[in-house]
């Protein structure tokens, strides 16, 4: 039974990815089940967050804000973006590992408990489907794998990307500066610069802290990267309500060739605003002690 449950969980985890879990909205929306209980409206004068809405709210918001056929500037990426079909589900099928990459990947595989269930003990973010929670940063691009809604704010010299998930941000500099050859600190979110190629916003980054993963993998572990990873992103607003996103990981220490992800589309969440979502370590001490660790250690209370 335990084995069957493990297989079930593994299979479930394997099919669950951003495309599967993100609610459809905006362009290409799909029919959704009616809400069992209506959502709670935002206070007067305030707006719902992307995840505060149910599918019916999203459909109504798209109509109210006339998303379909709305005029747009392809060089204006500002807005709150949520849902769609990616990109988390695209973080799979990497190119072959280098010998170091193979070792690094194998090092991400954690322990199993007595029942043979994967415990994801090497996932320091605690997000990988089995680890105890310790709230280490996900970093970029792993943060893209669970989009709780992000806001792009375009300033004359930079683009700011604010994430509701873990309430963090990254700065993409557009003032013409170059990436540092030897970044003086390694960052979870990297060092980021952006430029326009036609109507495509190209972001290049380096200087990543190699403790983060590109994404977690199933049934355990995560795609590793080195401190020499470079990430190239291509963002394109294909219509008012849709942002296309394509990402390439270049890390010759770990992968034998560039890892080119297929393009994904993320939807505008009109009329929403980013709320707050932190991972709170102290909140999870009880969870770890009462729920996670007894299962991990086999110690039943």
């Amino acid at each position: 039974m335990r084995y069957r449950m493990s297989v079930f969980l593994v299979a479930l985890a394997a099919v669950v990815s951003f495309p599967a879990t993100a609610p459809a909205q905006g362009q290409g929306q799909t029919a959704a089940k009616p809400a069992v209980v209506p959502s709670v409206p935002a206070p007067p004068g305030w707006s719902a967050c992307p995840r505060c809405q149910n599918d019916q709210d999203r459909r109504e918001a798209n109509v109210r804000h006339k998303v379909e056929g709305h005029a747009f500037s392809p060089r204006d990426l500002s807005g709150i973006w949520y849902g769609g079909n990616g990109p988390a589900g695209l973080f799979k099928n990497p190119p072959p590992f280098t010998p170091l990459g193979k070792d690094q990947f194998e090092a991400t595989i954690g322990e199993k408990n007595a029942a043979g269930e994967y415990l994801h003990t090497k996932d320091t973010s605690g997000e990988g489907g089995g680890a105890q929670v310790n709230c280490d940063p996900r970093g970029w691009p792993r943060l893209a794998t669970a989009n709780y809604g992000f806001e792009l704010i375009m300033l004359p010299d930079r683009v700011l990307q604010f994430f509701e998930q873990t309430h963090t941000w990254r700065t993409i500099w557009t003032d013409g500066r170059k990436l540092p050859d030897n970044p003086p600190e390694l960052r979870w979110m990297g060092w980021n610069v952006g430029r326009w190629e036609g109507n495509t916003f190209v972001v290049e980054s380096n200087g990543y802290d190699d403790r983060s993963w590109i994404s977690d993998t199933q049934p355990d572990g995560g795609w590793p990267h080195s401190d020499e990873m470079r990430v190239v992103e291509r963002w394109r607003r294909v219509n008012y309500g849709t942002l296309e996103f394509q990402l390439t990981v270049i890390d010759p220490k770990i992968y034998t060739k560039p890892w080119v992800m297929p393009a994904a589309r993320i939807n505008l969440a009109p009329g929403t605003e980013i709320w707050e979502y932190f991972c709170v370590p102290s909140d999870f001490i009880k969870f770890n002690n009462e729920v996670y660790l007894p299962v991990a250690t086999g110690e039943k209370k």
Partner: protein
Amino acid sequence: MRTPRPSTVAFAGVAVAFLLGAAASAHHSRAGYDNTPDKLVTQNGVVSNVLWRNPHVFVIWDVKDSNGSVAKWTGEFSSPTTMISEGMSRDTFKPGDPITVTFMPAKAGTPYGLVIKIVRPGGKVVVDLSQRRNLLEQ
């Protein structure tokens, strides 16, 4: 503390819909909870506390056994924002509210559960995540 095992309810229809729609990806693991359909638990209790906060909401309720002793149970939900999308607010439950709770119990045997459904006396469904996708998505 060893708490009395509540009556286990084979809530199969709900459970099947729940499992089909569930997502394993979450802010933190749900692997500590037993999502075997016939292990779903339904309890009658009285709310003693509501922790309406990020990253996850908790409702704590008291369950009195036949000997009169009271056990405290902790039910975990998603984030406040997700629960708002499910029609639940920080004022939905108050200490003293009698409730009937269906949840996935902690495998550890601790008085802990992942809440699926709460019904008030008289049958009013206050929150029902069983038919929704993303229940386990945080």
